């Protein structure tokens, strides 16, 4: 079977970290091509903060864990380099502090990627709201506003056939497949 890894200039990353009340944090990272078809998928085993982390990071624990630990690990596992990483959790924006890849948080009023069992973790970092894209509010890390300019510049090319929120639904389902304990009983 002849295959292609896809045009690396049009690879998008969708990364989410979810919190399960018993298991802890689960991260999923999906890379798709410009037709929204999957190329790679990486997910973590359940992650729980250590006692030391809980004490020392205090209110910044969630951002540290989701962005600098889980998200960074997932991005490092990818063989393909995405041009941008979209996330639906503002806690993941701290990934930007440890990664060169632009990161944008897609926010929606009505949570279209909601799952009763896997919740979006609360974040101390609100992110900076920079504008709207495809009808969704976009947040970027405060120190990296240029990420928004990047998205705007490439949106026509990258997002023509991709819905910004739909891939997160797939990731959540994939996490539930990979971790059956995270599904509702």
């Amino acid at each position: 079977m002849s295959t292609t890894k896809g045009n690396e200039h049009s690879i998008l990353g969708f990364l989410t970290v979810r919190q399960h009340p018993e298991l802890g944090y689960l991260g999923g990272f999906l890379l798709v091509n410009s037709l929204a078809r999957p190329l790679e998928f990486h997910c973590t085993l359940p992650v729980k903060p250590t006692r030391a982390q809980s004490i020392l990071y205090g209110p910044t624990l969630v951002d540290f864990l989701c962005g600098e630990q889980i998200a960074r690990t997932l991005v490092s596992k990818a063989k393909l380099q995405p041009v941008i990483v979209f996330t639906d959790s503002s806690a993941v924006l701290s990934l930007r502090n440890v990664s060169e890849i632009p990161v944008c948080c897609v926010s929606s009023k009505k949570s279209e990627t909601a799952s009763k069992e896997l919740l979006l973790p609360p974040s101390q970092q609100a992110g900076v709201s920079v504008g709207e894209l495809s009808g969704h509010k976009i947040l970027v890390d405060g120190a990296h506003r240029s990420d928004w300019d990047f998205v705007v510049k490439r949106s026509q090319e990258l997002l023509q056939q991709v819905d910004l929120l739909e891939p997160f639904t797939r990731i959540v389902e994939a996490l539930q497949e990979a971790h059956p304990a995270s599904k509702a009983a």
Partner: protein
Amino acid sequence: MDSAATASDGSAGSYSELELPPEIGFVDMPFRPSWNIEGFATGWQSQIGRDVKIETTLFQPEKVELSSFAIKIPNQKIHTLSFDFPESPQWQIASQAKPPASNPANPDEPGKGATGSIPQRSSAPSSITRIRPPKDLVKLEDRLYYVLQPPLETLVSNAKLEFAFQPFPYQFEGIAFLFSRETAILADEMGLGKTMQAITTVRMLLLANQLRTVLLVCPKPLVTNWVREFRLWAPEIPVAVIEGDSAKRQWMWNQPGLPVRIANYELLMRDREQLQGNLHFDLVILDEAQRIKNRNSTTSEIARGISRCRSWALTGTPIENTPEDLVSIFEFLQPGYLRDGMSLKQMGQATRDHILRRTKDKVLTEMPPKLFRDAELDLTSEQLATYKAAEDEGVIQLSDMGQELTIQHVFELVLRLKQICNFDPVTGASCKLERLEADLEEVAASGQKAIVFSQWVQSLDRMSDVLKRYNPLSYHGRIPSDKRDPILKEFKENPKRHVLLMSYGAGAVGLNLQFCRYVFLFDRWWNPAIEDQAINRAHRLGAAGSVTVTRMLVAGTIEERIHKVLEEKRELFNALFAEAGTPPSLGLNQGDIFGLFNLKVPKAKKAA
């Protein structure tokens, strides 16, 4: 009396209660209180005057070597799972096919696929159809492959797959169902587009490089229908029909690079050696799969022996007579999955994930209605006399046979009586034909067309003579194959042809005659499923308006008795697909048939 002093600078002062500094090292330092007490004092005065003994130490940080320890915050190792999904380059290629030639304003030739008479729905469908892995798919990587696919509608639009007509949401669900399954039965009611769903799924699997070779087996009359459907729904896929002499067929079986081959059931027997040789197919589809309901037949055996990865069955009647029909089909899909000893409830539960069945009333609210009109008739005087004599004589004969009575004897009597209900054997009088003539006058006057079904070719021939003024055409088993398509074409295109006389056997499966608004069941079939198939030749996707079905029934005769039994069974037809309940046999069983004449089944027959 309290006084404050700062110990660190050694200034004079006093403490009523001294808190000695902590254990940091001190050097001795003289300390004198600032007040002077003179004279000899006693009691509390002596206490005041007494020198306070304080030991102090000077702390000089620059001379102290501080020690410290670091608390390292270990980060936990985060374990990950990774999966690659190599992308097929064919997805990137937009469809090269030209738009189909069919014009929505002009319906296609008869027997072709969905015609332009389907109301065109605006823009893209609002539903989202996800591809789900089957429950028996265990490997996580395989399950994730399906879970992580975008919605089917997105796949289709992004790959620029063109369709002749916009698929209905339930058809997308059918495609999603087939896409991920190695074994599946698509059991939609006739007329809902099983053909389109199968072809579209094959198209997408070929694009995704999940398939390379497909064999489609269908009844011979439907081969041209399938070729037309492929041309309509997947024009870029080369399709080869296995036909011709032995040498040609052998060449076609072995020709590389043919993604889709179509063969008929009769051919399986003739090319058995080819099929059981080195041939292998990624997918084998059996259309009208009830053809293999007899698992002991050679056709079933050959079909089961074809080397393949995926097995699909398409049938509107997976249970034509008894649930054992379904067991036989599963012997093709997954041998041994269903066992004869299984209870019906167990069978239903086991097959639930492998069968998809939808009915028109559930999924097509925009379909025109199907109107049933039961014509209850009375025999003509000639027919009545003949009928009574035959029935009385026949029942006596059956009763006299005792233990030698077989179901065949009963059948013969039933058939003879039914034939009398159609036509008196001597005079040719027929109450049904009189009614039919009257109805057809109205049909012809309104410019419409009708199909008349009968189980006997002889009855059709008699009708043809009487209905000449409506220019009838006949379509039954005695019509040569090469003449059948032209007959259908003539029926569709010639406005003067108002009636098509069809036998249940020849016309019940696969044909598309959705331009007909009237269906007449001149005599009833044993099994409601076959009648439904016949009716759905007209009431199917593309039907321009409602379809009126007239079921002719002669009161007070064997027909009425059969009708009552079948009505009860019709209500229980879908029980196998319901959550609970035991589905019964769908045709008339032995007890039912003997019961038509109030006869008891001989004991020897029961043991068998």
